[in-house]
């Protein structure tokens, strides 16, 4: 008898279960699957769960004279020609500076999207330079919310200009100088970007004991978007101990995008173009009109094509 009741209970339960399954099956299928709704939900989820890296904080790898937070993409070779005319205040005889020139020609290459290397040669002090720039952090929103981008850059410079003859022996290392920089940048919306660049320039040899070998400075720079193709840029380095006779570099310019490359036009009080010369050996002053008109042009070549776009 007990067994019979149990059987009935069991069967009753089973029936109820089956009816339940059947009902849910109906329920699930009564309304058709709506992919559009699913997509709406997916979009909401993606906005939270995907990381969106902020790109184009600056338009190119140089702010004006100095490094910007941007890197040359992987597999891309960038030929850069930077040109500074003479100072505007040099008068009609020198055609307001256009008769003279200081220039740097360089090649930058992106080994990966994070690591860029480059070499260059400047007329100012007949210097060679080589550098690397490595992205440490990238500004992003979404799952990973990173407020700033950080890169490090390190440049070695070799001066080959013949100096006055001296009584002591000169070593190869005496011609070498270095610059180490931390680049900290943030893009505020689509229109404004700002960069801070703590910098240490190291001289292997200095003229007197009183001059420190390590010269610290703080660089600042911005980009303001004026239109889709034109951006206003500015750059200023504050030096803790400016060398005697030299001033802080101040530059203002425009970045103009022309299809495949960026054309930079600017006014600067620096004559030299590598880190040592423009940060620590800027001889002009804006208030005296000792300002150079200049431009940077670059041409990119795709050396290693991305696999997917062949």
């Amino acid at each position: 008898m007990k067994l019979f009741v149990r059987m009935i209970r069991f069967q009753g339960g089973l029936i109820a279960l089956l009816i339940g399954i059947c009902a849910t099956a109906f329920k699930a299928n009564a309304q058709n699957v709506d992919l559009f709704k699913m997509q709406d939900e997916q979009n909401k989820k993606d906005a939270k769960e995907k990381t969106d890296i902020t790109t184009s904080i600056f338009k190119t790898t140089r702010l004006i004279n100095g490094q910007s937070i941007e890197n040359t993409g992987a597999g891309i070779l960038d030929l850069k020609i930077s040109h500074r005319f003479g100072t505007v205040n040099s008068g009609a005889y020198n055609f307001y500076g256009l008769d003279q020139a200081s220039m740097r020609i360089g090649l930058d290459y992106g080994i990966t999207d994070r690591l860029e290397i480059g070499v260059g040669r400047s007329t100012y002090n007949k210097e060679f330079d080589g550098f690397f720039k490595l992205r440490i952090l990238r500004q992003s929103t979404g799952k990973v919310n990173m407020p700033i981008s950080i890169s490090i850059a390190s440049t070695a410079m070799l001066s080959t200009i013949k100096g006055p003859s001296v009584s002591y022996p000169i070593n190869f290392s005496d011609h070498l100088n270095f610059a180490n920089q931390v680049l900290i940048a943030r893009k505020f919306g689509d229109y404004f970007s700002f960069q801070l660049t703590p910098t240490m320039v190291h001289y292997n040899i200095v003229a007197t004991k009183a001059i420190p070998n390590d010269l610290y400075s703080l660089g600042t720079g911005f980009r303001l978007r004026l239109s889709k193709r034109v951006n206003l840029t500015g750059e200023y380095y504050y030096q803790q101990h400016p060398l005697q006779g030299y001033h802080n570099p101040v530059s203002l310019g425009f970045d103009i995008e022309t299809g495949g490359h960026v054309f930079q036009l600017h006014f600067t009080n620096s004559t030299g173009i590598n880190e040592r010369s423009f940060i620590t050996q800027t001889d002009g002053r804006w208030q005296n009109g000792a300002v150079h008109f200049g431009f940077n042009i670059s041409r990119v070549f795709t050396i290693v094509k991305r696999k997917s776009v062949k």
Partner: protein
Amino acid sequence: MKKAILSLILFSGMCFQLHAQKIYSTKTGQIKFNASSPLEKVAAVNDQVDSKMVDKTGQIVFSVLIKSFRFENQLMEDHFNENYMESSKFPKAEFRGYITNASTLNFAKDGKYPVNFDGTLTIHGVQQKVTASGIMAIEGAKPTISGLFKVKIKDYGITGSYIGNKIADEAEISVNCKYE
């Protein structure tokens, strides 16, 4: 009693079968974009296309992140995102619509079927009605959709002096999605 249970099982089985809708999906579909002109090659590939489709209703959705389009070089990618697509404002492009001849498709049988799409394409935040045709190849109950259609870039509020010059007026979009 046993008969009742049996009939219930049968019935529930039937109602499953009658209403079963299968969602085919992929997250690794491919969309190629080509707006090349004689002056410049403007082409990109996106291998992370998210697409879903329902076999019975023919409802179909494609979704792509604009930032995952890969160009020949990074500079073009930056310009594409920043100046043309404004991808920080409009991160995705979407197509939502229907395969209008879904009833003629037999997902169980291998073969190639012509398919017609009708729906809304959203690019750069602008919606446009779009019809297109393509081919669905079914192999081992797994469909693959391929198709090619053209969009007028200016229809989607994308502006720039290079469009119609270095960049073609019309972009050719080709789709290749293998569903599971």
